[in-house]
């Protein structure tokens, strides 16, 4: 408040306040009394100061001119002393004897009185206060109120000598002024004051990476530091903040603030009746990975908060349809008859175990699903069934509890029909979902199984032994047995394990979790880039999506199955992974080939009756725009059957559109021999053309 640089007067001049009709008296113009006067004047109360000496300042005037130059003190006090709301009575002691201001008169004339007469003065005569055990005038330490109505007390008068300091006096002044203001307004003196004065902060500040610096200013009486030392000392201040989660999470960093503010914004977003919901994107961009809760000293989980917000948005019909539609359609595909399958092993009417590879492993590496299934059947007696479907994580992340529960119920029904076998998942996310919602289910991942039963013969023949940096899956960040099995398998294959700085419980998301990459590609890109910059070694992932996300950004990454089944004639770590359309096609091919190979059944593929020719550039644009080959087929099929086609006579291309599910897809193309469609362009919108 009193700064010595003149800024006080400039600031205070800009704040006109309305004069109030109640007035206060301050007895003693030391730092506590001056602070009370300043705080009350700022609030519009007329204040009269009664001071025994002829000038303000109290004990600080005892400091040397060198240490406390008087012109600076005067400059600091000037805005108060010259304030029109303040009356000053210098040389006016308060007491009962002749020449003194009578305390009883003050009680009658003023609405509140502050006693700040300092340690050198006794309590003014006529002030009828009892004394506590330590010999100080009795008062409430929280509010500084005394037993006399409207009289407050503070400063060195009630401070033990070792606790007296200018800071304590100013603190007392602020506390007393707040009490007086509340008293004059007739409101509670005590409500909501728990964080006043000194209290133990909850603020955590990491000292990681901060090297200790020496104290530049030694406390030597009578010796003043030079300006260089003063600046060096000031620069030692860390400007304490926590921000542990913001440092760890590119999503939290992206929005330029920190969770306390985000929580408020999200809360407001949920309760707003009319107007823009500006936090929708923020709510839907979080990966829900739980890293923030892990690194937060207070365990604040933004993911849990965003997850609940999503469910609320769905419940109230305020979830933007575009946010998760693509992922939910993809899940619908994975659970459809076209690609889902639930079977006993051929020749068995019971299943002791059931292999559930998960939709993303089938999409990224359908060939490994077949190899694994063969191996599991060899190693596990009593029948190993196969369950091709999706665990429902996309619906859960999208806040669609209805779809999620529907899917879990369907899986349970299918598994019950197969005799409730133990589930072996190929994907850590499926495992985490089942373990959470089906706690009674006997479930583990292929990794703990392989660690236990041993690896297939000739495992690892395709990949040279090397050092690999292990990226743990964020959905199983607390699963130590799984994480240990990954490392055991790597060692068994002869590789060296490089631990990333953020591994196991502090592992990061790959940019897919929570459907982040569908909602906010920029944040997802930042998440991937931060992760892949952590270590120069090739990475090892055991979630198909993690592997593909890193590889797509140019980080050489193996899936653990690459190290077991991979072939040396293929650059396994450099493979960019399939796009959205290819992923769906792979799931379909996975079912088709397994049905043929294991059960000897054929399924007939329905051909559209025409061919598509799509260049790499157009495919890349489709991927960016989340348009599937299947969407293009729908548009062309509709154009062929309806005749609704246009021709751009300027470019010579044909144009057709078709609303498929909730999106209208546009395709520009040329036709070769009436059966080969060369796709030039594809785009879409969600606005509906009503004609």
């Amino acid at each position, binding site marked *: 408040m009193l700064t010595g640089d003149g800024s006080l007067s400039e600031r205070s001049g800009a704040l006109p306040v309305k004069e109030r009709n109640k007035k206060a008296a301050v007895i003693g113009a030391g730092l506590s009394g001056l602070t009370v006067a300043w705080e009350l004047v700022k609030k519009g109360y007329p204040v009269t100061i009664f001071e025994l000496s002829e000038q303000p300042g109290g004990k600080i005037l005892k400091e040397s001119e060198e240490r406390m130059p008087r012109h600076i003190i005067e400059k600091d006090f000037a805005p108060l002393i010259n304030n029109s709301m303040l009356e000053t009575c210098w040389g006016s002691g308060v007491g009962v004897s002749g020449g003194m201001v009578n305390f009883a008169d003050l009680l009658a004339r003023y609405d509140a009185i502050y006693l700040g007469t300092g340690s050198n003065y006794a309590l003014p005569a006529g002030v009828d206060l009892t004394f506590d055990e330590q010999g100080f005038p009795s008062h409430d330490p929280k509010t500084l109120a005394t037993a006399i109505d409207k009289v407050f007390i503070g400063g060195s008068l009630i401070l033990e000598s070792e606790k007296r300091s200018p800071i304590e006096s100013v603190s007392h002044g602020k506390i007393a002024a707040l009490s007086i203001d509340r008293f004059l307004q007739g409101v509670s003196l005590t409500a909501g004051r728990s964080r006043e004065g000194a209290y133990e902060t909850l603020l955590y500040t990491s000292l990681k990476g901060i090297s200790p610096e020496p104290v530049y200013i030694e406390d030597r009486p009578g010796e003043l530091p030079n300006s260089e030392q003063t600046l060096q000392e000031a620069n030692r201040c860390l400007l304490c903040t926590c921000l542990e989660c913001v440092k760890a999470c590119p999503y939290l960093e992206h929005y330029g603030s920190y969770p306390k503010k985000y929580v408020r914004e999200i809360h407001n977003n949920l309760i707003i009746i009319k107007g*823009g919901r500006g936090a929708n994107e923020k709510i839907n961009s979080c990966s829900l990975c739980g890293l923030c809760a892990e690194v937060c000293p207070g365990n604040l989980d933004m993911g849990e908060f965003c997850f609940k917000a999503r469910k609320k948005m769905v419940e109230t019909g305020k979830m933007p349809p575009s946010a998760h539609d693509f992922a939910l359609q993809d899940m619908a595909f994975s659970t459809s008859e076209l690609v889902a399958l639930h079977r006993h092993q051929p020749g068995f009417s019971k299943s002791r175990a059931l292999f559930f590879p998960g939709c993303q492993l089938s999409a990224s590496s359908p060939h490994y699903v077949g190899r694994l299934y063969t191996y599991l059947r060899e190693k596990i007696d009593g029948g190993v069934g196969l369950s091709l479907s999706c665990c429902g994580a996309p619906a859960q992340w999208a806040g669609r509890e209805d779809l999620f529960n529907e899917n879990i119920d369907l899986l349970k029904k299918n598994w019950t029909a197969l005799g409730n076998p133990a589930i072996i998942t190929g994907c850590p996310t499926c495992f985490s979902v089942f373990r959470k919602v089906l706690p009674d289910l006997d479930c583990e991942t292929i990794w703990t199984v392989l660690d236990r039963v041993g690896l297939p013969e000739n495992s690892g023949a395709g990949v040279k032994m090397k050092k690999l940096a292990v990226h743990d899956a964020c959905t199983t960040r607390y699963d130590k047995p799984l994480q240990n099995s990954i490392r055991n398998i790597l060692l068994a294959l002869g590789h060296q394990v490089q631990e990333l700085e953020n591994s196991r419980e502090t592992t990061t998301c790959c940019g897919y979790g929570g459907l982040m990459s569908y909602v906010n590609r920029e944040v997802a890109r930042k998440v991937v880039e931060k992760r892949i910059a952590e270590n120069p070694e090739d990475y090892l992932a055991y979630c198909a999506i993690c592997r593909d996300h890193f590889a797509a950004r140019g980080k050489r990454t193996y899936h653990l199955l690459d190290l077991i089944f991979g072939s040396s004639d293929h650059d396994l770590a450099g493979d960019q992974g399939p796009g959205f359309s290819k992923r769906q096609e792979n799931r379909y091919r996975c079912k088709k080939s397994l049905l043929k190979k294991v059960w000897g059944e054929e399924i007939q593929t329905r051909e559209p009756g025409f061919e598509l020719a799509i260049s790499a550039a157009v495919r890349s644009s489709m991927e960016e725009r989340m348009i599937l080959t299947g969407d293009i087929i729908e548009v062309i099929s509709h154009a062929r059957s309806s005749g609704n086609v246009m021709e751009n006579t300027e470019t010579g291309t044909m144009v057709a559109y078709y609303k498929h599910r909730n999106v209208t897809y546009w395709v520009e193309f040329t036709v070769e021999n009436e059966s080969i469609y060369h796709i030039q362009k594809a785009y879409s919108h969600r606005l509906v053309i009503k*004609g």
Partner: protein
Amino acid sequence: MSETSKILCSRCGIYLTMGTVTLTYLEASFPAELYKCAKCGLVYIPEDLALGKMAQVEKTLEDK
């Protein structure tokens, strides 16, 4: 945009002309001036419009 486009409706054999088209999304409905076939009503929405203005309108309506 000129009144007549370079977009030919293959079925009707006529060039699309500017006309009023109703667009809807969520609970909103509004008119837009777009090229359409005066005979069969087929509409043409160019790529830049779909990915520009229309995408903005979609986002605004979704966040309302």
